[in-house]
């Protein structure tokens, strides 16, 4: 799901605000006009995922045309539809309770729809041809009427923004190269910077560019500070960077240690059984919500298992030092002699593969000879 959405992020990103808009719009219509119309209306349209473009195009038609479409599908007269008949002159119907909000949303939708909806509007129309031929001749002319207006509106908006930026930059806008520099450096904002020179600061194009760049860097630094725990209190770029570097190095070290653990555990594991485990975890975690609950749940269950600890798995020593006190009582019955033996002997010859890992307890540096031991045994 994330994969597919990521792959299509270039397109779907523009649709998602539209789709949420259309969802809300649909709910509004639903609440106002009765529930029976909506399921009928949108059963005929292709499912949202496959034809997300056609869905938005369906509502990219003027909203009153969508209402007309719905009317066509449900021929049964009802007070709801009679009330809906008054919806057609959208702007002037006094019986429509949330008129203003719907109009505003309709205009916003139509603004979205003309750019995206016009190529899909034509494609949606043949795809929706399951018997709804009649509304289309009606809907198309008003749509084509509205289209030329709206691009003009957008162009005006563009021009006004350009004019705004130009006037604000004022006289210090000598030529094309500075324009290029402005366009280049604000790659993460709108192409035209609406910058008003602050009091006491130069409006020089160079300093403006530098200031914008510095602000970019500061924003990123702030983001990093939030990410790394304990960095918000530190002031000073160098110290914060120190902290960040330490944090990244510690995370990388933890990954190495965990990978060694996994390597040690791996040969013993039957993966088919664990597949069930994992899917069960995934299912439960998906039901439960965010990730932390999952890991906590796993760890808690593991702790319960410790009471039946056999001397087989010494890897626990590495991470569960604090639980040793609980478990030594259970251990001592059968494994103390073995424990001592292994510490004295140190190497793995003759002892079963698991117990040699007791040496792991001493230090992380012991892990390297440990892995070589594993290789010799296995």
């Amino acid at each position, binding site marked *: 799901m994330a994969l597919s959405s990521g792959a299509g992020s270039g397109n779907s990103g523009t649709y998602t605000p539209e789709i949420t808009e259309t969802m809300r719009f649909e709910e509004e219509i639903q609440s106002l006009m009765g529930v029976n119309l909506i399921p009928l209306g949108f059963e005929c349209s292709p499912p949202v995922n496959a034809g997300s473009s056609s869905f938005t195009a369906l509502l990219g038609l003027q909203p009153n045309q969508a209402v007309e479409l719905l009317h066509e599908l449900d021929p049964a007269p009802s007070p709801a539809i009679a009330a809906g008949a008054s919806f057609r002159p959208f702007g002037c119907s006094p019986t429509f309770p949330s008129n203003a909000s719907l109009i505003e949303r309709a205009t916003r939708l139509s603004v979205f729809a003309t750019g995206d909806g016009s190529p899909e509007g034509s494609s949606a129309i043949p795809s929706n041809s399951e018997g709804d031929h009649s509304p289309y001749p009606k809907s198309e002319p008003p749509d084509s009427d509205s289209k030329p207006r709206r691009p003009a509106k957008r162009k005006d908006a563009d021009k006004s923004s350009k004019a705004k930026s130009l006037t604000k930059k004022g006289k210090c806008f000598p030529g094309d190269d500075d324009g290029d520099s402005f366009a280049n450096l604000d790659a993460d904002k709108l192409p035209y910077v609406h910058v008003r020179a602050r009091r006491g600061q130069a409006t020089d194009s160079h300093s403006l560019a530098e200031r914008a760049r510095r602000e970019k*860097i500061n924003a990123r630094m702030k983001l*990093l500070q939030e*990410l790394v725990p304990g960095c918000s209190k530190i002031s000073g770029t160098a110290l914060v960077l120190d902290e960040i570097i330490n944090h990244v190095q510690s995370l990388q070290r933890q990954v*190495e240690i965990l990978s060694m653990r996994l390597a040690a555990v791996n040969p013993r594991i039957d993966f088919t059984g664990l597949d069930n485990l994992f899917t069960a975890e995934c299912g439960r975690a998906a039901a439960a919500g965010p990730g932390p609950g999952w*890991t906590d749940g796993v760890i808690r269950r593991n702790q319960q298992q410790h009471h*039946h600890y056999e001397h*087989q798995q010494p890897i626990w020593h590495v991470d569960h030092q604090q639980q040793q006190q609980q478990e030594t009582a259970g251990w001592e019955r059968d494994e103390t002699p073995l424990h001592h033996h292994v510490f004295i002997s140190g190497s793995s010859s003759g002892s079963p593969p698991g117990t040699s890992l007791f040496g792991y307890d001493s230090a992380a540096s012991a892990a390297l000879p440990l892995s070589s031991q594993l290789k010799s045994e296995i």
Partner: protein
Amino acid sequence: MISSPCSTSAAGRKKQRTYFRSPPESKWRSGSQQLIYGRRLFDALRAARSGGGRSAISSRDIKNAADSALALTAQAQTRWSRALLFGCCSRRKVLLKAAGKIRRRRPPRPARKFGGNASPEPTPMLKGKKVTDRLCVLSRIVPGCQKLSAPCLLEEAADYVAALELQVKTMRALADALCASSLSSPSRESAPSTAGACDEFAS
């Protein structure tokens, strides 16, 4: 992918390619990402094991598998993820260029005008030597970020940190689960009783 809410404003069709870089926390801390990564890691481990057969699985293999899984989960949209995925490949440069918009720097770097300064020293007046040193160190730590400009480097670092946290959390949980399942088996052999242990977990 979460796109920034200002992307489709009514102001019209501006260039939107940079709007899809969502903040790293929201991307990596969602539970779904953890599940996806966990699943992928698990599959990678299983593949590594079956590929290795009876030979020992070194920790380096596991680390590489985990990193590759992480980079895949990042969908190769960041530089570090691409470097992780293609780092072992011999035709790395071609793949990197094809996969992303990495600008290749020739050693005698032509002096660019301001507007996307590519060297690690963006504003020599503002940042002292210490900061540039730290930035160099950071660029060495984060894979694939050599000779990157400061804002890009910081952005990559933020994404990398979030991804690493996810990786550590998932690997720890996986290791614990694996240990617990093999632990609960009374006999030395794990095969017959693992299924029983899993039923316990599943219930």
